[in-house]
């Protein structure tokens, strides 16, 4: 079977609709006839780029509209990607063939996995990213994506038409009006406007309208949405000042070096573009009482802090840290902005003091005594739309075929934005082809938790992913995102390339085979002890022990097992990733008593042969539990409903297994046809 070990990065294979032009850059919006696309994506940030490329991968002719092409892929805040929970999201985006993980593997300058000591379910892949490289690589990717057109322009209004009677919603979007009055028509429209909706920048007592320092906000669009009846809220966030690298005395600070070897973000990469020894270090310093003093003395000059708008509790400005947790030393990480950048990003010093006071405060800090502030920190306040107004496919309830993704939904973070972008792009495209929506459930991925939390609970502060939000944390791990999502992404969404799909299939079947082989090998504990002397296997009871259980010992891995029992285990050590994943699979194998799977494609809202209340149907529809056990844990799903569901699944399974026997051959033929089609 085909899989690619050590293949560096690769470009999505072209789809069958080769007659469409490759991506092109059109700055000429006044084309002779009114252009018409399948999907329009407004915004070129982390949600917009993923949405546009996902829609294009699904086969939709897609237009990406952005204020400025040269800001596509801009990292407006921290120069890093990933982290705990966020790294999980990136793996899932990658499993759906999204961009950010692959781009990060080409652009990082310091790769480090967090939580290494805490168990594979909560490992956090993270890297410092070179802003310039990221942007370059992202733009290269975007401009070379088949079916994707990029155009500069600010959207002022939406074109609305009569709603489709078979869907809810008071009208339907059919295109956009640009600032210059020109129109572009489309079947679906995705809004990924970030902080640009009535964005307002705050430094000290000054405010001025901007979506990002130096960029115009979107005001017309915000008004349009409000007029349509969308509930709008206001959030705030902030970014720290940037410091000149050569003005910092690193020699007296605590130096942190990257991991060796670097762990790539993408399933398709074995290594990252840069060797560990060529990567850049980070440095750690701390605030002190003098910093507190400056903050407290100047509160009257700081309107952002006084505002009642909710900011993120987990990413507080230095002002709110001083106010809420006084008399403490707070960490300040000094992070590189890029290989050839002369800027340093002081993570932890997000602030909105007047510019001149920012430098005064910073120079109080150890190592920064002579620091020069190149760009002051600032706060941003912006509109977001209450995410309870969108469905799990990210389409709005109010306006048919209008999708929202990213910060506009009240989230924060590049990874959260990217995750929503992929889902919006896929669903906007599926909507055009009249296929059922692609929804990730809480039991399937962090993406599911993120979207379910947003759409059912809403949010009153910028929403960030945490592993503690995830009920099924032990099974939703970074290592198995491909098994969870790639196969579905290929079959249900069509957003995954053939190569990636085959690789995921190979990995999945190899893991299953490996585990059954490990289960089949059994020796007495005394024999295991002799075979693997370094393992602390207890020989007090002479019972047969399976290789799978031996693998649970911390000091045993597939290599030591294969040394002890070369046949048939040797072949599972040839692929590094497979060997490591076998070990991890075993660690989590604690609680799998809920064997009965629920079919993924079950449409809870319409299935007829089962008696379920409407309320329960909706709950199941939103949560899409994978097993009966998971279904029974959903609040509001009654034991009675579970029994009915169980009955339904059992009878369906019986019917299907009868059918499968007769149609297996047909299926193979069918698959073969599809493969050929793709390869054309």
């Amino acid at each position, binding site marked *: 079977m085909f899989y690619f070990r050590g293949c560096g990065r690769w470009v999505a294979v072209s789809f069958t609709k080769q007659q469409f032009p490759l991506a092109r850059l059109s700055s000429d919006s006044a084309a002779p006839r009114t252009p018409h696309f399948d999907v329009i994506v407004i915004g070129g940030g982390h949600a917009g780029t993923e949405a546009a490329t996902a829609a294009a991968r699904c086969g939709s002719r897609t237009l990406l509209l952005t204020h400025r092409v040269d800001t596509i892929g801009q990292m407006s805040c921290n120069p890093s990607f990933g*982290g*705990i*929970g966020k790294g999980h999201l990136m793996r899932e985006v990658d499993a759906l063939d999204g961009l950010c993980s692959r781009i990060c593997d080409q652009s990082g300058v310091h790769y480090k996995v*967090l*939580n290494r*000591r*805490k*168990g*594979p*379910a*909560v490992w*956090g892949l993270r890297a410092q990213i070179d802003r310039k490289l990221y942007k370059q690589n992202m733009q290269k990717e975007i401009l070379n994506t088949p079916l994707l057109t990029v155009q500069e322009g600010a959207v002022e209004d939406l074109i609305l038409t009569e709603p489709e009677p078979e869907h809810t919603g008071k009208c339907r979007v059919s295109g956009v009006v640009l600032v210059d009055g020109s129109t572009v028509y489309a079947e679906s429209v995705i809004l990924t406007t970030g902080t640009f909706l009535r964005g307002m920048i705050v430094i000290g007592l000054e405010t001025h309208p901007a979506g990002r320092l130096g960029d115009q906000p979107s005001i017309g669009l915000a008004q349009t949405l409000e007029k349509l009846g969308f509930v709008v809220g206001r959030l705030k966030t902030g970014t720290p000042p940037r410091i000149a690298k050569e003005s910092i005395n690193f020699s007296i600070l605590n130096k942190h070096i990257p991991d060796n070897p670097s762990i790539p973000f993408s399933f398709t990469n074995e290594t990252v573009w840069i060797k560990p020894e060529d990567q850049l270090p980070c440095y750690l310093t701390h605030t002190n009482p003098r910093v507190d003093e400056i903050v407290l003395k100047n509160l009257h000059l700081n309107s952002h802090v006084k505002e009642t708008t909710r900011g*993120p*509790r*987990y*990413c*507080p400005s230095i002002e709110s*840290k001083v106010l*809420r*947790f006084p008399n*403490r030393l*707070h*960490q300040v*990480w000094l992070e590189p902005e890029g290989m050839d950048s002369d800027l340093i990003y002081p*993570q*932890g010093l997000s602030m909105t003091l007047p510019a001149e006071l920012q430098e005064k405060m910073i120079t109080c800090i150890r190592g920064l005594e002579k620091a020069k502030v190149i760009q002051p920190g600032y706060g941003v306040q912006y509109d977001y739309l209450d995410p309870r107004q969108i469905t799990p496919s990210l389409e709005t309830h109010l306006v048919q075929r209008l999708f929202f993704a990213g910060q506009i939904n009240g989230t924060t973070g590049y990874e959260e934005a990217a995750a929503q972008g992929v889902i919006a792009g896929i669903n906007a495209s599926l909507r055009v082809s009249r296929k059922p929506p692609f929804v990730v459930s809480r039991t399937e991925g962090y993406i599911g938790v993120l979207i379910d939390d947003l759409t059912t609970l809403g949010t009153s502060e910028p929403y960030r992913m*945490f*592993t*503690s*939000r995830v009920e099924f*944390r*032990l099974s939703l791990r970074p290592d198995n995102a491909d098994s969870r999502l790639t196969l579905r992404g290929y079959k249900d969404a069509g957003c995954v390339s053939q190569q990636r799909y085959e690789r995921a299939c190979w990995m999945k079947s190899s893991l299953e085979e490996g585990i059954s082989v490990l289960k089949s090998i059994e020796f007495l504990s005394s024999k295991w002890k002799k075979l693997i002397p370094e393992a602390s296997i207890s020989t007090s009871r002479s019972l047969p022990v399976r290789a799978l259980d031996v693998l649970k010992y*911390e000091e045993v891995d597939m290599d030591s097992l294969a040394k002890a029992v070369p046949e048939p285990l040797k072949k599972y050590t040839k692929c590094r990733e497979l060997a490591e994943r076998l070990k991890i699979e075993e*660690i*989590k194998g*604690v*609680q799998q*008593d809920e064997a009965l799977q629920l079919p993924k494609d079950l449409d809870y809202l319409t299935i007829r042969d089962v*008696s379920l209340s409407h309320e329960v149907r909706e709950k199941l529809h939103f949560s899409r539990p994978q097993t009966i056990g998971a279904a029974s844990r959903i609040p509001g799903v*009654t*034991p*009675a*409903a*579970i*029994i*009915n569901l*169980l*009955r339904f699944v*059992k009878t369906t399974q019986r019917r299907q297994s009868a059918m499968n026997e007769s149609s297996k051959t047909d299926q193979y033929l069918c698959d073969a046809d599809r493969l050929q089609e793709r390869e054309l």
Partner: protein
Amino acid sequence: MWRGLWTLAAQAARGPRRLCTRRSSGAPAPGSGATIFALSSGQGRCGIAVIRTSGPASGHALRILTAPRDLPLARHASLRLLSDPRSGEPLDRALVLWFPGPQSFTGEDCVEFHVHGGPAVVSGVLQALGSVPGLRPAEAGEFTRRAFANGKLNLTEVEGLADLIHAETEAQRRQALRQLDGELGHLCRGWAETLTKALAHVEAYIDFGEDDNLEEGVLEQGRKPVSIVSPEPGTTRDVLETPVDLAGFPVLLSDTAGLREGVGPVEQEGVRRARERLEQADLILAMLDASDLASPSSCNFLATVVASVGAQSPSDSSQRLLLVLNKSDLLSPEGPGPGPDLPPHLLLSCLTGEGLDGLLEALRKELAAVCGDPSTDPPLLTRARHQHHLQGCLDALGHYKQSKDLALAAEALRVARGHLTRLTGGGGTEEILDIIFQDFCVGK
């Protein structure tokens, strides 16, 4: 280092000891393999109550409860003496039916006990079943679910039963809520809070530990709740109280002022408080001077306190009294003893230590009687449910202790908290996040 939290969790778990009479650590994993039991007839007083089991250990359970008799003939009603497998104490003479699978309601091995309907009998049999390894109380609808899974019910049957189960679940929920208004609920909520806090701190360490150096802080914060001890309202300064372990029972010992009449106002207040404490006590140790039984205060004491407690029939009162006569060394060895009209009493000499062993033995017996029946409330199903969830909580905390992988450890805490919140309600993720952000300065 996060393991320090274990102390906290262990403390939280220590409380349920009185309730969790089942000590077996090998509690069966919930899953279709387990054998389940439940009271299948209605709640409340009735002539006959039916208790059902289903699962592979059914036959074993029947054999254990009816030992030394063997399994009765399949599908024939037989009269058997049921006794508690732990104490051998007889529980009831009952009709038992043995349905080996697959010819049973659920398709699994099933047993029906038709017992006399008194709450004490039903409670006794349920607790006896709970003590058999491999058995656990059934979840709502579980019998039906198993019946269905084994192809024993058709659609209409299931639908009818589903409604019934729904009603049953609702009744159970209401009953559980009612019971949780009381002291038990207070206790559970306290434990749930402690666990929530512990979990929040472990979660904080997982989500923020690496970047924010929370490690030290987590443990400091995590240990704090350990100091929570059982809250005892109304403790007065002049009644000295110490929690002690007496013969394995957790006991709160209160030393009160002597009950004397005609003393000054301060001592009178002390006496008043002593009397108040006397009314609340489960067990009264009444101490008199053996050589001074004829004095007016001794007579008065015997007449009012000792006689009034003794006069109540044992079943009406949960209060017990031990009369102790101290200074036995002052009685003449040949003398007639302290007095012929005295109620049962113990002689003790604190000076020589004579009679101390006898007193301790008597205390042990009394305490066993007081603590043996942990609750006098009758709701049977909910009690089995409480026991199950508390045991589940305890087991999960055991896994927490064993886990080397912090994510697994946190999972055990989540499960433990889940069990408690099924008794107390609540338990969302936001609660955890709120604690994290309140207690820690997270974010770089």
